[in-house]
């Protein structure tokens, strides 16, 4: 049984894995097992899966005093139905429960309780392991305060999926703290003449200093999932930014096989962009024309047939192209690394066949340029046959007259051929755009590296898999 040769993973499996986020599911299962290490893993897993919502929010909202953590945390909880946990809430519940074992200091200044760190972590852990937190997820406000607390939390298995750190200039924070004081005249504590829970001016300054010392370390600890949000903007803007960060899933470790389709008229830079993308992300670059020519050079029956078509200049029939294409795309390098495809499909029939063969692209781009620009780009370009360098009369003229003399023009780049190709392209492009509703249109009338950056930004973004497909969007340079 020859198992080493030609292992082909049917694309159906990879698509299924992507569609149902199988990797994330497995990762969560294994992670929970490792953290809790139950004696009966099978039973534990059954319970975990039965809970329904596997991915619950685990968010930490950090920031200096008076930066608006409470408001943000409350809004987040409303939005995600998670449980809101604050330092004082944990203490209050604990006080109610452990009246005998009161190890909590009653002279607490501001929000930081003076209890031993290990006990504090234990309290948090207890609170977070209660049923409602497990089921709905949690939003921790102002916890942890220091890097040591963060590390201790991690040791007991509490780590956030997202961390939001609010930031504002110190003057604003001091102003806000004092404003809080003025707003709560009824909370004056007779014993200490200090507003209950609201610190005095010196206190604010010293708290801020302490906070800044810790903030830097906390930034480092959570840098993978952290986002700093300026809280000296309008409330809605702050919340919008926080929400968008919290909703984007952290970049998964799942095997990532991007499958990119590039469409565009001749001269739009498809080959160039495809090369750049393939190089940077280690994808397989497939140009339909090149593939056909390579196959026709082989002495196979399919190759011979294709050669005849190429020689006569007629378009190769769809079924043959599809056959060659499916063979190439099912090879192991394509399935494991992903691919960038350009020059195919050329019409809606080919697109349908590609879809039926189960090769679904994960990103589709339409490169757009006006016909005049296309004409300019294509008709004036030439190749130096000796060095292989490509030149262009306007954008990249040949450096010396000898090179200029030996430049050769591709006969397909002539004006008549170009018009034919452009006509073919525009006849099909609208139908193709309909077939791929999630496609992104990019204007390529700019330098190639800006185009590449735009394409990259769309490649990297995780598209919502369960949301309805978005309409075709126009992305111009400068906007994102």
């Amino acid at each position, binding site marked *: 049984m020859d198992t080493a040769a030609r292992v082909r*993973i049917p694309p159906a499996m990879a698509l299924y894995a992507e569609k149902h986020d199988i990797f994330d599911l497995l*990762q969560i299962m294994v992670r929970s097992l490792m953290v809790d290490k139950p004696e009966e893993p099978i039973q534990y897993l059954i319970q975990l899966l039965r809970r329904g919502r596997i991915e619950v929010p685990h968010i930490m909202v950090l920031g200096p005093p008076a930066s608006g953590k409470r408001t943000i945390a409350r809004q987040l909880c409303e939005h995600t139905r998670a449980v809101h946990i604050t330092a004082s809430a944990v203490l209050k519940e604990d006080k109610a429960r452990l009246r005998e074992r009161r190890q909590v200091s009653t002279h607490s200044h501001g929000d930081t309780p003076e209890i031993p760190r290990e006990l504090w972590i234990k309290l948090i852990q207890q609170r977070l392991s209660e049923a409602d937190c497990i089921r709905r997820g949690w939003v921790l406000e102002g916890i942890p305060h220091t890097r040591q607390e963060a590390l201790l939390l991690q040791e007991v298995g509490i780590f956030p999926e997202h961390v939001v750190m609010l930031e504002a200039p110190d003057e604003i924070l001091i102003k806000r703290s004092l404003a809080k004081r003025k707003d709560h005249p009824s909370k004056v504590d007779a014993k200490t003449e200090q507003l209950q829970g609201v610190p005095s001016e010196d206190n604010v300054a010293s708290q801020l200093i302490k906070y800044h010392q810790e903030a830097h370390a906390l930034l480092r600890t959570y840098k993978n999932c952290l986002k700093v949000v300026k809280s000296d903007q309008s409330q809605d803007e702050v919340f919008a930014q926080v929400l968008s960060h919290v909703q984007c899933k952290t970049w998964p470790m799942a095997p990532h096989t991007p499958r990119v389709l590039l469409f565009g008229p001749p001269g739009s830079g498809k080959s160039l962009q495809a090369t750049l993308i393939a190089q940077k992300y280690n994808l397989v670059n497939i140009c339909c024309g090149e593939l056909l020519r390579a196959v026709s050079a082989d002495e196979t029956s399919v190759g011979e047939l294709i050669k005849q078509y190429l020689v006569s200049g007629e378009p190769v029939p769809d079924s043959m192209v599809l056959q060659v294409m499916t063979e190439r795309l099912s090879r192991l390098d394509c399935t494991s690394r992903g691919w960038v495809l350009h020059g195919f499909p050329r019409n809606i029939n080919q697109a349908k066949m590609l879809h039926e063969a189960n090769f679904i692209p994960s990103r589709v781009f339409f490169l757009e340029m006006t016909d005049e620009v296309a004409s300019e780009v294509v008709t004036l370009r030439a190749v130096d046959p000796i060095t292989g360098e490509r030149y262009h009369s306007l954008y990249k003229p040949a450096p010396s007259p000898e090179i200029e003399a030996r430049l050769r023009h591709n006969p397909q780049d002539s004006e008549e051929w170009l018009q034919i190709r452009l006509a073919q392209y525009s006849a099909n492009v609208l139908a193709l755009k309909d077939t791929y509703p999630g496609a992104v249109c990019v204007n390529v009338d700019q330098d190639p590296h800006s185009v590449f950056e735009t394409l990259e930004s769309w490649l990297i973004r995780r598209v919502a898999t369960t949301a309805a497909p978005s309409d075709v969007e126009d992305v111009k340079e400068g906007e994102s």
Partner: protein
Amino acid sequence: MSAKQEHVAAAGSRETPCLSNQGRAARGGGNMATPREREAADYLEEHKIAELMHNLTSLLFFHRPEKPIPFLIAQLEKLQASREGATEPPCLFDLSNVDAVFGILDPTGQGHVTLVQYREALSTLGIKGFDDFPEGAAADRISLATFKREAKAGLLRSSATYKAV
């Protein structure tokens, strides 16, 4: 039929590299692994978590249910039941597959295969730790009965991904 195993194994192993790496790192690290890491590696091995995940993934990819979570729950419950001795654990391959494999190796219907074929076939089915020199090895004729017996025992072992009761 061999295609089933290849595809599923290849796709499954892509998804669970982290487990094997973790185990290898903690065990092979010796002084490098912290006590927590060693604990973790021991736990994984004791409860056969890596094999469990591998089997679950294979089943998922082969059956591709519309609702993966209820499917996984069902498989886990079957596994739990088999642990208590009630039924057989869920497995991707059943006895008819074993027969089919034997049939491929022995197309003329002689009733036996060579030792090399026997070893290759059992490893393709993903069975580890089978008897290298079963009955008939000396004569290089492994009978269908021996083949089936070893295959069945091996499949049972690889699907029973739980700590021995």
